């Protein structure tokens, strides 16, 4: 789109630029134009305001748990591990060493971890709690059975003391 500067304002380039409809090349041209024509900033601000109002009217609240998901993702992105260099030594992967303008860093990960679905967490907690319940119940009934057995033995002994075995009649033969 070979365009004369005034056309940027009159023909909708600003709107197309702000909504992201233009290609990367056109976007670069537009940025160049804006830097050379600061007076167009007023119009740009007006369009930005009306665009924000327009899309705010169509806002849909996301589920509350997405906030935590974003934080988790940000923290997850920060995991950088040591990588072996060509000479065998280990050095921290330098974020901007290879490309200072890049917001990304290439890292090699010697990964010993696995990722599992989030539903495994409550499942593990439930299994752990159940195992504790069964352990406590098992110990309780084990000791209870022991004490009952001892009690039974005592009762048998008491019974044998209180009721002596009746004397057998002598053999008259």
């Amino acid at each position, binding site marked *: *789109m070979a365009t004369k500067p005034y056309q940027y304002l009159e*023909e*909708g*380039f*600003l*709107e*197309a630029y*702000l*909504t*992201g*409809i*233009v*290609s990367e090349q056109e976007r670069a041209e537009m*940025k160049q134009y*804006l*830097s050379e024509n600061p007076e167009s900033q007023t119009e740009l*601000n007006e*369009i*930005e305001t*009306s*665009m*924000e*109002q*327009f*899309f*705010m*009217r*169509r*806002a*849909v*609240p*996301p*589920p509350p748990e*997405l*906030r935590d*998901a*974003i*934080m988790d*993702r*940000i923290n997850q*992105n*920060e*995991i*950088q591990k040591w990588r072996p260099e060509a000479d065998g030594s280990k050095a921290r992967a330098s*974020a*901007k060493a290879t490309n200072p303008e890049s*917001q*990304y*860093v*290439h*890292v*090699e*990960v*010697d*990964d*010993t971890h696995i990722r599992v679905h989030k539903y495994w967490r409550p499942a593990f907690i439930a299994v752990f709690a159940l195992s504790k319940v069964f352990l406590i119940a098992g110990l309780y009934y084990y000791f209870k059975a022991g004490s009952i057995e001892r009690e039974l033995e005592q009762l048998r002994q008491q019974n044998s003391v209180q009721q002596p075995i009746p004397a057998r009649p002598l053999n008259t033969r």
Partner: protein
Amino acid sequence: MGTIARAVVPLPRSEGEKGRLMELYERYGSMAYGIILQIVPQPEQAQAVLVDLFATLPVEEGADKTERVSALIIRLARRKALASRPGSVERSLTSFQPTERNLPKVVFNLAFWHGCHVTEIAERLNIATTDVLRAIRAYVKSFTVA
């Protein structure tokens, strides 16, 4: 020995940047989600795009200040949502039959929500690219009076 994996991850963020991101999410999260849902109607996929958008949003010191942050979020939300759509999505324009009255809306819908380029819209609707841009301008102008 574990598996050697190659990964590309964004640079770590400072606590200040994390706080700023969360502020922006509180303020513009609903707006971005509305845009994404319009392009990607499946809620799970739309939520994944929203998480990706705010986790990778450039809010570092020295970031491009020529654009308002709300405009940046609108642009990136649209771009990420369009990129996340299946490649086989058919952008059929045959169902769009613009009249003189609704041309700005049809053109904006095609360009913004469906990701069609200006020249593509001009060809399909058989109008000049300048008319496409004027239609977009007219529709965006109507935002203020809507």
